[in-house]
C-alpha cells in the first residue's frame, strides 16, 4: 500500500509538472504538442549530469546540478517550438510532432555516441544512475520520499500565483484568449508567447528528469517517455487548464499509472489474473474515457493554435 502511494505521488508529480508546462504554453496561445520531446531532452540533460558529475559532491549539489541540466536543456529545446510557431508561423501540430520524434532520435544518437566512446563494445542507449539517484531520495520508514514530490507542489504554487495573481500571468492569459485585444493595450504578444513556451520548457524538462527517476535507476533513451507528454496533455484538458484542477487530475492519472508498477503487490489484484499489459494500457484507456466526457465543454484558451499576425486585426 505504501508502495502504491509512493508511486502514485511520483507519477502524479511528473504529470503535474508537464501538464503545468502545457498549461503555460496554451494560455499564451501556443499548443505545445512537443512536450514529449521536451521531456526526453530534459531527461537527457539530467541523466548526463548524473553520469558525469563525480559522486563525491554533496547530495544537495547533485540535486541542484541535475535539475539545472534538465531545465537548461528543456528550455533550449523549447526554443525550437518558439521560433517555428511564434516567429515563423509554422503549423503547430507538425512542429510539435517533429519535436517529439527529434527528441527521441537525438537523445538516442547522443547517448549511444557517449556510450560507444567510453566503451567501444557498448552500443546501448542506456544511462545508469543508481548511485547518483540516491541524492533525490529520503527514506522515511519504508516510504521513499523523492524531492521531486516537493518540487511539484512548489511548482504548482508558483504556477497558480503567477497565472492568477501577477500582472505577467494575467497578460499571458490575455494573449491566449484574444491576442489582438491584448496587443491594442500595449502588450507584446510575441514576447508573451515566447515566455509561455519557455516556461513550458522549464516544466517539461523538470517533468522529464522526474519521470526517469521514478522507480528505475537506468534509462533506455530509445524508448522516449512512452506517451507521457500526451498523458500530461490529457491531464491538462481534464483539469480544464486550471492549475489546481490539473493537480487533482494528475493524482487520478498517477494512481492508474502506479498500479501498473505495483499491482502484483496486491493479493486481490493478482488473484484476478489480469495480464500485465492490461495494467500498462490502463492510463491510456482512462484518459481516452475522461477526454470523451470532458472535451465537449472544454474551456480551452480561445486563440490557441492560431499564429498571431500583427497585421491581422
Amino acid at each position: 500500500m505504501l508502495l502504491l502511494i509512493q508511486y502514485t505521488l511520483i507519477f502524479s508529480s511528473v504529470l503535474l509538472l508537464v501538464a503545468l508546462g502545457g498549461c503555460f504554453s496554451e494560455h499564451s496561445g501556443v499548443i505545445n504538442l512537443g512536450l514529449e520531446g521536451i521531456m526526453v531532452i530534459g531527461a537527457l540533460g539530467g541523466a548526463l549530469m548524473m553520469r558525469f558529475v563525480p559522486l563525491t559532491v554533496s547530495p544537495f549539489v547533485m540535486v541542484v546540478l541535475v535539475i539545472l541540466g534538465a531545465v537548461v536543456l528543456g528550455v533550449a529545446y523549447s526554443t525550437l517550438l518558439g521560433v517555428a510557431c511564434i516567429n515563423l508561423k509554422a503549423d503547430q501540430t507538425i512542429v510539435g510532432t517533429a519535436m517529439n520524434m527529434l527528441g527521441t532520435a537525438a537523445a538516442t544518437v547522443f547517448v549511444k555516441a557517449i556510450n560507444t566512446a567510453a566503451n567501444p563494445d557498448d552500443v546501448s542507449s542506456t544511462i545508469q544512475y543508481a548511485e547518483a539517484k540516491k541524492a533525490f531520495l529520503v527514506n522515511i520508514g519504508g516510504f521513499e520520499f523523492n524531492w521531486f514530490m516537493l518540487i511539484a507542489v512548489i511548482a504548482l504554487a508558483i504556477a497558480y500565483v503567477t497565472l492568477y495573481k501577477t500582472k505577467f500571468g494575467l497578460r499571458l492569459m490575455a494573449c491566449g484568449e484574444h491576442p489582438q485585444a491584448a496587443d491594442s493595450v500595449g502588450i507584446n504578444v510575441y514576447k508573451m508567447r515566447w515566455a509561455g513556451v519557455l516556461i513550458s520548457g522549464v516544466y517539461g524538462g523538470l517533468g522529464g528528469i522526474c519521470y526517469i527517476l521514478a522507480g528505475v535507476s537506468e534509462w533506455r533513451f530509445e524508448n522516449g517517455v512512452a506517451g507521457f507528454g500526451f498523458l500530461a496533455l490529457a491531464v491538462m484538458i481534464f483539469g480544464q487548464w486550471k492549475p489546481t484542477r490539473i493537480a487533482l487530475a494528475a493524482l487520478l492519472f498517477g494512481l492508474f499509472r502506479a498500479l501498473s508498477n505495483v499491482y502484483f503487490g496486491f493479493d486481490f489484484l493478482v488473484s484476478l489474473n489480469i495480464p500485465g499489459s492490461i495494467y500498462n494500457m490502463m492510463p491510456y484507456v482512462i484518459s481516452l474515457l475522461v477526454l470523451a466526457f470532458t472535451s465537449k465543454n472544454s474551456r480551452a484558451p480561445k486563440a490557441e493554435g492560431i499564429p498571431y499576425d500583427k497585421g491581422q486585426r
Partner: protein
Amino acid sequence: MKKNLLKNNAVQSLIASLICIVLGLFLGYIVLLFINPSGAGGAILAVIKNFLNSTRANLRMKNFGNTLVKTAPLLMCSLSVLFAYKVGLFNIGAAGQYVAGSCACLIAALGWGWGWLPCLLFACVVGAVYGAVVGLLKAYCNVNEVISGIMLNWIGLYTTNMILASVKESTSNYTLHVANEAPQAILPSLGLGKLFNNNQYITLAIPLSILLAIAIMIVLDKTKFGYELKATGGNKNAAKYAGMAEKRNIILTLMIAGALAALGGAFLYQTDYEQWSVTQSSVPGMGFNGIAAAFLGGLNPIGTIFASYFIQHITNGGAYVDLTKYSSQISDLISSIIIYLCGFVLFIKYAINTGIARREEKQARKVQAEAAETEKGGDA
C-alpha cells in the same frame, strides 16, 4: 509575358521539399560533426547511398528490393496521414492503425489459417474500426484527434502484444514465421522477385500501394466525395451550411485513413520480412515516418510515393553507418529534422512568392522608367 515557372504551386512544393531535404541532411551532418568530426561526411554519404554501399551488383539489387519492401507499408501510412490531413485532421494515430492491421493479419494468418486475401481484408476492416474510434471521438465528443490518436497507439500496442503472444515461437519473443507456418497468407509475388535477384519478399504489395496512391488522388481530386471531404477540411461550418454531413465525413475519413494504415501493416507482415516482437515496448516508427513522408511529398499522393521512398531509403541507409562511430538512428534524426523543416513549407512558399512579387515590381518600375526615357528621347 512568359509565365514564371516559380509561380506554379506544384513547382513551389517541389522546391520547398528539396530545400527541406538538403537542409535536413546538412543539419544532420552538423550534429554528426559535434559527435565525432572524423567520420561525419562518410556517415552521411553512407545514409544517402543505402544499397549502393554494397559492392556486388546482385546484392545491390537485392538490397534495393528490401528498401522497396519497406517502402510499401510506409507509403500506405503516409497516404493515411495525407488523406486525413486533406480533411483537416492530423492522423498521428496512423501508427496505432498500422499496429492494429499488423495484429489482425498475423492472428488471421497464424492463428486461424486464413488465405492472403481474407487476411488483407480483415486487416483493412480492423484498421477502419480502429480509425473510426478517433473519428467518433472527434465528431461527437470534440476530442483532439492527436491526443486520442496517441492514446490509441499505446492501447493498440499493448493489445497486440497480448493477442499475438498466442502465436509466438516457443523459444523467442517473436511471432512464428508466416512463410513456414502459414504460407497461404503470404502475398503473391507475381514473379516480381526475379527482377530483384530473387528477393522473396517482393510481392504484390509494392505495385498495389502505388495503385492505391493513384486511387487516392482520383478520389480526392475527381469525385464529389473527395470534394466534400476537402470542403469539410477547409471550413467545417461552411461545409455544414452547404448541406454536407460534416460529422459523417470526419468519421468516414478516419475510417479510410485507418484502413490505409492497417493495409500498410499487412503489406509488411504478410511478406514475412519481419516478425512481430511481443515484448515490444514502443510503438513502431512506421506510422510516424508516414507523417514525414506525407508532408515531404507536399501532401500530394504522387509526391508521397517519392517521399516515402526517400524516407525509407535513408532509414535503411542508417544500417550502413560505421557503428563504431555513430548509431543507425542518425537516419531517424535526419528524417525528424526534415519533418520539423516541413513545418516551414508555407513559410518557404511565402518567401518565394514575395520574392517574385518584389522582382516583378522592380521590373515593372524599370520598364516604366525606360518608357519615360524613350519619350524624352523622342522629343529631342
